[in-house]
């Protein structure tokens, strides 16, 4: 099949490179030309120019447009990747973000020139505060994982101020949690303790009680959980922790389900993070960027990162860095400001009604899929779900030795991006391969019905034509990819880029 490589559009950039080709030109130099070696006297220079590709503009555009076609994306495909909230990203986000007022906003401009930006940040903080039910917000964390870290750092600083920094060293994390939770706890200098979930995926109160002690700093809880279930005992959980002097951190990656329906602060949550790239339509960007603001209770506010955007009594805006108890900075400047702008534009369009409506429809859509596919795929917890429904491969595996991975790959042939698979981990879903489906509120009933038809078709293929499932996908530019070799014998760069 190597003939495909002969098409220049199929080659990688380094391979189509030819000396002398280029796209961009500089203006004529309007200052005296200098001898580079003399101008940089005392600096060691590189032996050879970097072996970068040389391509013309048409080949460059064609290369990337060709790559574009090899990607599934929300703009072209239903993308029910659970836990990631792959909703539609309104076009106006990127159009307005392209205004020079944003693209050329330099962080070292004088504060007087940044008034509109600081106002935007203050307002966005206020909205997130309103939705979280927690009084203070920082927009600095670049993504959910960095929000988690910031939250735990704030908790740590709080305990240090009370002289309990040395004793409160443990963070309790349910086994169903996203991997970033335990990784963050370790990074923030805590010892993570794993709490086993009950059979229906909620927190085992008795086990939690037994685990909480004087060394507990916090519990990190995801609500709705990664099993797509609303935690019924949030209030009790918060009480248990607070009685023991510990804090409750809520991973708000799944806020899409409960925004406008309940404020986490009302449960007793002390800190939570938002994933603006999930809940508030910041595009996921082939992996990022996102933004992971955190909201905190008032006793934690003094520790938030600086600078804090503030509104002054006279209606002007400032950046306040005089916060002696602050943990410092977690990211340079103001975080992923461009992502914050997109979330702001989106939320301004949603308004109060829209926030509530999004949550309701996200949950409705997920439950509709649960109802329609019940009996076709096994559901560990067949009760009302939140924004996502977790099926497993139990039936298909037992009857036809077909795994969640095979089913996911077969979906691609029907133009649907696979759901999240094997998360939550098998130990949480009875040893089965999880298939976590998050349709989001932006999908129409027709798309959901198509999904149902496809999933039923695949289930019957598992019976009638298992090979077609096991060898899927069949319609993609490449067939099933050997991911093992990618790890055992990694080839991480094109040989031409080392001259």
């Amino acid at each position, binding site marked *: 099949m190597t003939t495909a490589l002969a098409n220049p559009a199929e080659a990688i950039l380094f391979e189509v490179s030819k000396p002398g080709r280029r796209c961009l030109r500089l203006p004529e130099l309007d200052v005296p030309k*200098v001898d580079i070696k003399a101008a940089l006297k005392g600096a060691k220079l590189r032996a050879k120019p970097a072996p970068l590709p040389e391509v013309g503009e048409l080949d460059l555009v064609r290369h990337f447009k060709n790559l574009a076609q090899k*990607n*599934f994306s929300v703009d072209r495909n239903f993308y029910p990747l659970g836990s990631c909230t792959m909703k539609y990203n309104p076009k106006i986000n990127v159009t307005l973000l392209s205004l020079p007022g944003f693209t050329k906003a330099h962080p070292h401009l004088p504060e007087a020139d940044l008034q509109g930006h600081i106002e935007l940040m203050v307002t966005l903080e206020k909205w997130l505060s309103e939705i979280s039910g927690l009084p203070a917000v920082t927009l600095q964390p670049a993504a959910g994982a960095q929000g988690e870290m910031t939250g735990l*750092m704030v908790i740590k600083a709080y305990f240090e101020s009370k002289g309990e920094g040395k004793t409160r060293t443990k963070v309790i994390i349910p086994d169903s949690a996203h991997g970033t939770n335990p990784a963050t706890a370790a*990074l923030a200098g805590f010892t993570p303790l794993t709490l086993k979930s009950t059979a229906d995926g909620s927190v085992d109160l008795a086990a939690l009680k037994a685990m909480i002690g004087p060394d507990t700093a916090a519990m990190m809880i995801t609500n709705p959980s990664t099993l797509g279930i609303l935690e019924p005992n949030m209030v009790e959980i918060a009480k248990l922790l607070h009685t023991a002097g510990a804090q409750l951190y809520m991973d708000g990656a799944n806020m899409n389900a409960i925004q406008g329906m309940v404020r986490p602060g009302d449960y007793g949550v002390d800190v939570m993070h938002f994933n603006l790239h999930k809940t508030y339509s910041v595009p996921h*960007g082939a992996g990022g960027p996102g933004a992971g603001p955190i909201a905190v209770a008032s006793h934690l506010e003094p520790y938030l990162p600086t600078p804090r955007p503030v509104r002054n009594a006279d209606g002007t805006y400032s950046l306040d860095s005089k916060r002696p108890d602050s943990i410092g900075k977690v990211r340079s400047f103001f975080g992923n400001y461009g992502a914050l702008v997109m979330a702001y534009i989106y939320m301004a*369009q949603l308004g109060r009604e829209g926030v509530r409506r999004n949550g309701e429809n996200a949950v409705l859509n997920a439950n509709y899929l649960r109802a329609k596919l019940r009996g076709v795929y096994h559901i560990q917890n067949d009760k009302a779900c939140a924004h996502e429904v977790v099926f497993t491969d139990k039936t298909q595996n037992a009857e036809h030795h077909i795994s969640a991975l095979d089913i996911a790959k077969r979906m691609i042939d029907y133009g649907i991006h696979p759901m999240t698979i094997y998360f939550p981990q098998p130990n949480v879903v009875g040893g089965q391969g999880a298939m976590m489906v998050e349709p989001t*509120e932006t999908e129409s009933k027709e798309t959901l019905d198509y999904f149902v038809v496809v999933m039923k078709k695949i289930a019957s293929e598992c019976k009638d034509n298992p090979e077609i499932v096991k060898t899927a996908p069949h319609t993609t530019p*490449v067939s099933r990819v050997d991911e093992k070799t990618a790890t055992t014998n990694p080839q991480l760069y094109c040989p031409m880029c080392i001259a």
Partner: protein
Amino acid sequence: MPFIQNTDADRAEMLKAIGVGSIEDLFKDIPANLRLKMSDASMLKLPKGKGELEVTRHIHELLAKTKNAGDYAYFRGGGIYNHFVSTLIDHIALYDGSFITAYTPYQPECSQGTLTFIYEFQSSITALTGLEVANASMYDGASALAEAMMMGKHVSEDRHRKENRNTFVLAGAVNPEYLQVCKTYADVAGLKVVQVATGADGRVDGQALAKALTRKVFAVAVQSPNYLGVIEDVEAVVAAAKENEILVVQAVGEALSLALLQTPAEAGVDVCVGEGQSLGNHQFLGGPAFGFFASKKDWLRKMPGRIVSETKDKDGRRAFALALATREQHIRREKATSNICTNQSLCALRALIHIAAWGKQGFVELAEHTVAKTQYAISKLTSVPGVKLAHTGAPVFNEFVIQAVPGLEKKLLKKKVAGGLPLDKYGKGRRGQYLVAITEVTTKADIDRYAEALTEAMKGKPVAV
């Protein structure tokens, strides 16, 4: 209803299929007293939603209360630079939904577009740094440096098992944003961050550095060009770190400098991190852009972040896939090398397009153009009476520090010149110093205007010594 396609009829049908009477029935696990009542206006105090026209107007109103680099002869950098960004980049990365509305390429068969560009991006970073492994991006230069610090600690835990090395040395003038982020990460990890002062030439003080690099140190980082614009002797830092087997990290604030300067690999560093904004990313008040992270292959399994490898499909065709996921949080959980999940891939794509659009020759020309303009700016500004270079004797690339007098900023802004960034707060003895940044966007006319306005502003001021 904005962004929702379900009609009332759809909703009714769906509720029936589910077997509940109302949507709120699906939220029964939330105690009734905590469920927000939309009829109560005191709950959820958010404004009414705006349509596209209104929100566009509103954004224009907000922006009317701002100025940007384009409104001035602009001379500020300090980590974010006022570069030209080709329209090619926005057409591919912003307006075409194929990359921007995809996510992490977990399923390689329908993500070859993303995987291929990440591989090409990694290759470009390898081409620029000479280091064999680059990841798919970090949040920014600052957190990339903090991650390098954490990696240095892990490497040392393996290499120097019983020593329990705990100190991270920052050699010389590191961007204060990077320093602060490193300190925040170090605080909770129980690590010590020590900064070694700069000498008169603006480079790290070699003797002080040699003294600081004891066997308590697991890693040392040097920024080059450093925060003062001065190009460091990275090789000398590598040599100083050798005896005690200290991991050497080079941080790069202006990635364009890699076009001309000795590569991190040639200098012998272990890890090179940096801020990628200057490669095709807009300023956006400092983000999103991305951090890059490249390493010698020795440390591959300790690296943070996603990494893409070339491999094959089952029919033997070339394909790309995520590799070495066992380092990452979704597999390794608390034992992961880092907690990063969502990264800044789209910004890395922008960098790749930028690099390819300038190409091998153009990228060098861009750097040379910058050097020429920087030299012109130095000669022009230091010919203003009372103004001189703060550091002499070591080369600079795109930034330099002038010594003038404090309090010039406002006078220059009035003349539509955003002069160099005042360094008064950066450290002791920096009163009246300004960090001046040049890019290809800077014109001779801008520089002349700066010099003129500076001359005016300096009139009658005591001459700096």
